């Protein structure tokens, strides 16, 4: 991914009359329209300024226009941090393009800064020449002082290297809303819609979706709906008429980048919730979610709670432990049971996960990882729960671990986690993270016929014959192929049985303290997980490279973007990305052995690298970052190049 932003200086005044240009109001020919192949925009403001909503709307417009896109919402843990301060800045970055892209972008081409704090917090990320749109109304002496500006950066020449657009957004919004019976404060609140209108004009975004959204959102408050619409349109018209914005930009749809199909924009948490509903349908089992609210996982609880007409039961428990407890109870009763949480919640659920390992019941444990340890960084992303997922329980308690690579992949991974849990009667840990949870990208909507068949057979009758010929039911008599035990749900006559966390005798499931039996059961539980069938690891290595980059989880986007950059510059590099962390794909050892060097980038201090080194005795090189943000492609490209050359 070499520089793909066509600099306006290089392509002066290129007229666009290609696809897409006719879909919205044409800027009447008075202004230049330039074509770009990709743009990165960052909206930044106070956490109360509605930046996430603004970003969401711009994303929806962009998705419906058909660009490829990737987003990065970034917000403080506080609901309303002190206004105008650096910790209170909330931002939303969107990367959209006429071709296939993988990340929300390293550095914004355009920054919309609603106040001095937003400017100060984000300026360092901007490359020279970036466009900055600032709301000058908020650059008061007091607001400037609050974030340590002695002199306004709008006046001291410090922004000379950028293309600055000073816009009195608040004043313009209030003026545009004069005819409405609103207080000044109420009118000011629509300034984000003014900004959205302006940016929508600048980038030729379709507007019908936003207009419909506003009508719907404020259906009960028609004045507010009308005011927001008016602000949105005023922003658009401002762009069209003011001389400060001489150029608007076109980014053509990315049709060629996508396989044929119907697409929508989707975030990771939404995709995961849909994946769970789909898994429930494919397994023909009712979905039961036991959960306790925690950032950044709560949206899955919210989403599933809206779909009771799918037979989905959601239970907001009194704590994390009760959340998984209720799910495990439902699993005993024959439901597709799920608990959703983040790292601190997994810590609390550990004992119950261990019980599920011992009971050998299907259970999905979804961990939307965030910065740790302890409360850590609730709204930031991290991958540091891998070893907790692998080993964070007492005793030998192996659990399959699986991780999605992109927001859309969360859908498929939910189905895959359900497959493993149901087929092998085991808890499964699904490791998503804050970046995937809140970020979004286009998703090709699958046809229901494409989804895997996850149906299971409950035990219906005796499965064992005693020496005296009596037919009995043994709850721990295993399937010889999968080593899964039968799932006999209450209500099935003749199969009454008792299970528990105390060690069980092989076969009968009775309490057993026999040393040899315990040794056998520990090894058997391990063998069951080790024997789970997972697809082989695919390696992307078109040029016969000597160095392999091995990743897992949400680093897929930036790793792939970095690999593309290196290959474009003529450097051979191989890439593989793990979905299954436990068990590893069968061919992983062989793949690792093929390369001279293995680089493992992770948003932790090298947890996968530790596992790889331990299991395969490979001198894997760890490249790590734990700053709460996803890797940048350029940073990884540099690190990979150094590894190759070093």
């Amino acid at each position, binding site marked *: 991914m070499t520089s793909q932003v066509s600099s306006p200086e290089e392509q002066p005044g290129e007229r666009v009359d290609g696809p897409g240009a006719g879909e919205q109001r044409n800027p009447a020919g008075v202004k230049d329209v330039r074509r770009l192949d990709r743009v990165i925009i960052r909206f930044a403001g106070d956490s109360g300024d509605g930046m996430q909503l603004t970003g969401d709307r711009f994303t929806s417009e962009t998705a419906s226009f058909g660009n490829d896109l990737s987003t990065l919402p970034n917000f403080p843990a506080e609901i309303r941090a002190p206004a105008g301060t650096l910790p209170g800045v909330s931002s939303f970055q969107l990367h959209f393009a006429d071709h296939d892209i993988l990340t929300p972008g390293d550095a914004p081409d355009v920054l919309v800064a609603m106040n001095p704090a937003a400017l100060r917090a984000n300026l360092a990320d901007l490359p020279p020449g970036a466009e900055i749109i600032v709301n000058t109304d908020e650059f008061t002496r007091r607001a400037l002082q609050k974030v340590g500006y002695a002199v306004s950066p709008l006046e001291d020449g410090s922004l000379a290297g950028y293309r600055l657009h000073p816009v009195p957004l608040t004043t313009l919004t209030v003026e545009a809303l004069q005819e409405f019976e609103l207080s000044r404060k109420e009118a000011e609140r629509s300034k984000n819609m003014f900004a959205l209108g302006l940016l929508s004009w600048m980038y030729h975004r379709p507007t019908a979706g936003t207009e419909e959204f506003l009508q719907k959102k404020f259906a009960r408050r028609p004045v507010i709906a009308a005011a927001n619409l008016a602000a949105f349109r005023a922003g658009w018209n401002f762009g069209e008429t003011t001389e400060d914005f001489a150029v608007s930009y076109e980014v053509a749809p990315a049709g060629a980048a996508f396989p044929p199909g119907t697409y929508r924009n989707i975030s990771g948490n939404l995709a995961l919730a849909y994946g769970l509903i789909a898994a429930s349908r494919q397994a023909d089992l009712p979905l039961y979610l036991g959960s306790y609210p925690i950032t950044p996982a709560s949206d899955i609880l919210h989403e599933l709670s809206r779909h009771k007409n*799918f037979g989905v039961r959601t239970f907001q428990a*009194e704590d994390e432990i009760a959340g998984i*407890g209720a799910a495990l109870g439902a699993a005993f009763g024959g439901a597709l049971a799920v608990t959703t949480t983040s790292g601190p919640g997994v810590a609390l659920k550990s004992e119950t996960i261990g019980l599920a390992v011992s009971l050998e019941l299907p259970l999905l444990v979804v961990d939307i990882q965030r910065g740790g340890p302890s409360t850590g960084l609730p709204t930031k992303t991290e991958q540091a729960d891998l070893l907790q997922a692998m080993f964070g329980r007492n005793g030998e308690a192996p659990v399959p671990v699986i991780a999605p690579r992109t927001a859309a992949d969360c859908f498929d991974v939910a189905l895959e986690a359900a497959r493993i849990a149901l087929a092998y009667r085991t808890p499964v840990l699904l490791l998503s993270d804050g970046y995937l949870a809140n970020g979004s990208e286009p998703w090709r909507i699958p046809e229901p016929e494409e989804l895997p068949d996850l149906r299971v057979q409950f035990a219906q009758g005796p499965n064992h014959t005693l020496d005296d010929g009596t037919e009995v039911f043994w709850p721990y008599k295993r399937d010889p192929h999968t080593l899964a035990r039968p799932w006999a749900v209450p209500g099935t006559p003749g199969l009454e049985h008792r299970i528990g966390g105390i060690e069980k005798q092989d076969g009968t499931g009775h309490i057993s303290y026999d040393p040899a039996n315990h040794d056998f059961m520990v090894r058997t539980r391990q063998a069951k997980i080790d024997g789970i069938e997972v697809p082989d690891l695919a390696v992307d290595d078109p040029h016969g490279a000597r160095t392999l980059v091995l990743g897992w989880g949400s680093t897929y986007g930036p790793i792939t973007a970095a690999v593309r950059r290196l290959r474009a510059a003529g450097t051979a590099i191989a890439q593989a990305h793990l979905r299954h962390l436990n068990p590893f794909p069968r061919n992983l050892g062989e793949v690792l052995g093929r390369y001279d060097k293995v680089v493992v980038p992770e948003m932790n201090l090298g947890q996968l690298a530790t596992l790889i080194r331990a299991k395969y005795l490979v001198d894997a090189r760890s490249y790590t970052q734990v700053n709460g943000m996803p890797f940048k492609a350029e940073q990884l490209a540099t690190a990979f190049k150094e590894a190759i050359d070093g």
Partner: protein
Amino acid sequence: MAETSAEGTGTLEALSLVPKAEARQSMKDFKSDQEVRWCPGCGDYAILAAVQGFLPELGLAKENIVFVSGIGCSSRFPYYMNTYGMHSIHGRAPAIATGLATSRRDLSVWVVTGDGDALSIGGNHLIHALRRNVNLKILLFNNRIYGLTKGQYSPTSEVGKITKSTPMGSLDAPFNPVSLALGAEASFVARTVDSDRKHLTEVLRQAAAHPGTALVEIYQNCNIFNDGAFEVLKDKQQAEEAVIRLEHGQPIRFGTDLAKGVVRDPATGDLKAVTVTPRNEAEVLVHDAHAASPTTAFALSRLADPDTLHHTPIGVFRSVDRPVYDTQMADQLDAAIEQNGKGDLAALLTGHDTWTVVG
């Protein structure tokens, strides 16, 4: 597994969705093939026998009965019942049972727990199960000691209890489980004693019939680590003065020849035990387990002296109808289907804003 719809109307509203047994049942049907491993003389044996002896009365298909327990001596209970059962982890049985009961309304779900399991490590789950009013029957075996860990004081032990962990006496003020349950918005709260089979059975009967969460505190003797803890309630002579038997609709009288009664102190509104005289006889409180307010039930729960156990009421303190959580949860699912139609996966995945790429 689909819920079985009500076949006719059972006599017990709480169990109307649970399939009935095809044949007559006996106590033997509920005994599992496992050897019972409590200490000889443990009060748990009597409770097990009472439960096994009483369940045939309900006439429920035994495959639709589930016992869920936590950790502790009492929590071995499910192994001895020939029903479905889960011996889970410490304190968590109410949470696990909540998931089972809310997802399978065709089951009769029982929780067996102890004073440590329910009131210490699992206190949170207990109070929340009670306030939600999930269709669970919780049997709390209270022996006022930790048995399985060999004799430390429990959250119901009297202050100053000398144990291995409290050689100079325990400092903690104990919980009164009945008071706690009433404070947690319980719709059914009762207390009984392991050795009084008749009373225990009658309380179980009423608990089983109750729609919603029923908490039954069972005073249970641990003859190894806290022997005789409830002797004053069991010794025939002492019990006459110590035990107050609550019966709905009956004046609360106790003592030799029912010479004593419970009256309200007009000065404080509190309850007190008095000797009944012709003058005050009309003032003796008539027990109303169905009272909307839990105030009087709470006052009754405070009558007992925590040290001597004198004036300990047993029986059903409170039994009121309140919306049942699992019923309402099912109703919401039905309402969602009524409002939006049965879920259509293709429509859900598609959503509202899509675009099409043509090959």
